[in-house]
């Protein structure tokens, strides 16, 4: 498959992945993925565990090193060794399954440390941004708490606020509710829904089919390292064409 440079340079496309292969040793986890997210689009990636969906997401900000293929972020080829990955990552918010808040820092410092260091913001500006984003996730009163003093749902909302404090152009969510007790899932999904409504560009790896159905503009079903099927949620989730999609949905729904 030939790469079209004109399309690759399209800045309308937030995330543009072409022919992506990823090996872990001998194991081929991604077998030539073509995947894109447009600006303002919410794309949910679903699929059984081991399908490679988390690896795909982690390749988008190069937490995982792709073996071959190209990844363009807003038209910029981030597999180019000349590109400063730190600045690219600063513009891509990421939310992890295990929250990964910094446990030795207060909520406020969690939200300001990268703003100060990476974006060189003044402390007053960083704090103002942190307060605004904590309010957005409904946790203004926890500003001086340590992560260990918060529930899982609260920690994940703080993690979202931390990513938002960098004023990212897009957000990646890696199974953001999978580590949560069932009664805490709703509050996190609510925050994510709010973000989607505000027009945030989002790539969400999730098992929450209800969320995908209601919020996603597009659903991508992956299995065995390839994209099996993609389209509007009503089609992929409601009326799947592929046998593998049907089988997966019958197991999770």
């Amino acid at each position, binding site marked *: 498959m030939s790469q079209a440079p004109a399309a690759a340079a399209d800045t309308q496309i937030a995330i543009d992945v072409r022919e992506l292969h990823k090996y872990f040793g001998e194991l081929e986890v991604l077998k030539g993925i073509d995947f894109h997210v447009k600006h303002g689009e919410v794309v949910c990636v679903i699929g059984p565990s081991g399908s490679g969906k988390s690896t795909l997401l982690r390749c988008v*900000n190069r937490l995982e090193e792709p073996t071959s293929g190209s990844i363009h972020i807003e038209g910029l080829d981030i597999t180019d060794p000349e590109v400063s990955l730190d600045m690219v*990552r600063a*513009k891509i918010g990421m939310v992890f399954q295990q929250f990964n808040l910094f446990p030795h820092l207060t909520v406020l410092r969690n939200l300001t*440390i990268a703003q100060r260091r990476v974006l060189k913001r003044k402390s007053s500006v960083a704090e103002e941004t942190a307060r605004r984003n904590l309010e957005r996730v409904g946790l203004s009163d926890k500003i001086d708490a*340590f992560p260990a*003093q918060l529930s899982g749902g609260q920690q994940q909302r703080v993690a979202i606020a931390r990513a938002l404090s960098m004023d990212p152009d897009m957000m990646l969510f890696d199974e953001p509710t999978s580590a949560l007790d069932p009664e805490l899932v709703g509050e996190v999904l609510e925050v994510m829904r709010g973000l989607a409504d505000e027009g945030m560009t989002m790539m969400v790896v999730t098992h929450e089919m209800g969320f995908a159905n209601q919020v996603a503009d597009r659903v991508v079903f992956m299995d065995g390292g390839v994209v099996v099927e993609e389209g509007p949620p009503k089609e992929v989730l409601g009326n799947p064409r592929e046998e593998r999609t049907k089988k997966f949905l019958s197991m999770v729904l």
Partner: protein
Amino acid sequence: MSEPSTVERRTLAELARPSSGLKRTTKQKLTRGSLYSVFVIVIVLAAFLADWGAIQRSFLNPDIAREMFPRILTIAARNTVIFTITSFSLGLLLGLLLALMKLSTIRPYRWFSNIYIEIFRGLPALLTVLLVGFAIPIAFEGFRWRDCSVVPGCGTYGAGTVGLGLVAAAYMAETIRAGIEAVPKGQMEAARSLGMSRGWALLSIIIPQAFRIIIPPLTNELILLIKDTSLLFVLGTSDATKELTKFGRDFANLKFNGTPYIVVGLVYLMITIPMTRVVARLEARNKKAR
């Protein structure tokens, strides 16, 4: 299906109620009682058999103890603390450097670190102190340890503290490395995903958490160092550079009496016990932020 077992099957009630007659609680009381009585008998025997008069004359002589003050505190204890802090700081800095080298992707760094750790962990601290104190001035002509008298505790003992620091660094490097590796991988990933460089993430996210984890082993290392400063006398001392053990030994020789050993021992404990208490409190406070 397998055949029904021919082994006699007993119910739980039969197994759990042995027919020895003794109740479980009675048996427990008997065991504990005998352990207590052995303990008491040993202590009572020791107390009766010891010659308390001789012990008091040779080890608990209040007049000799009184004579040791104030120099035992103003000189000896002060020197012990200074030597300990100097060598601990050196060991910590060098240990951190070695730990980072050991985790480095650059292979010669890892080799150097591994070789260093093997050597200085394997040699007796006394030998290292002697080597640093005597070999280095000979190897580098014109270099004298006495030249650096600006720093407190420097001089001849400067060599000793450097020697102890080199040994401590080897132990601390392993501890710090283990601490860094104990910080979950997600912490580095989260820091990198926010655009922080690897070095900055290590410095502001990983290392602070690593040190929280390794406070107990580092306290251990500090206490070992306090005691190891007693080796420094081998480099020769003046009245002003004696640390606790040397001070006690000289005093004991002078008075031909063991009391100074006891007093010096108590001063060591006066340093180490409060320190372990402070660290325990620090740890409890840190738990909150885990």
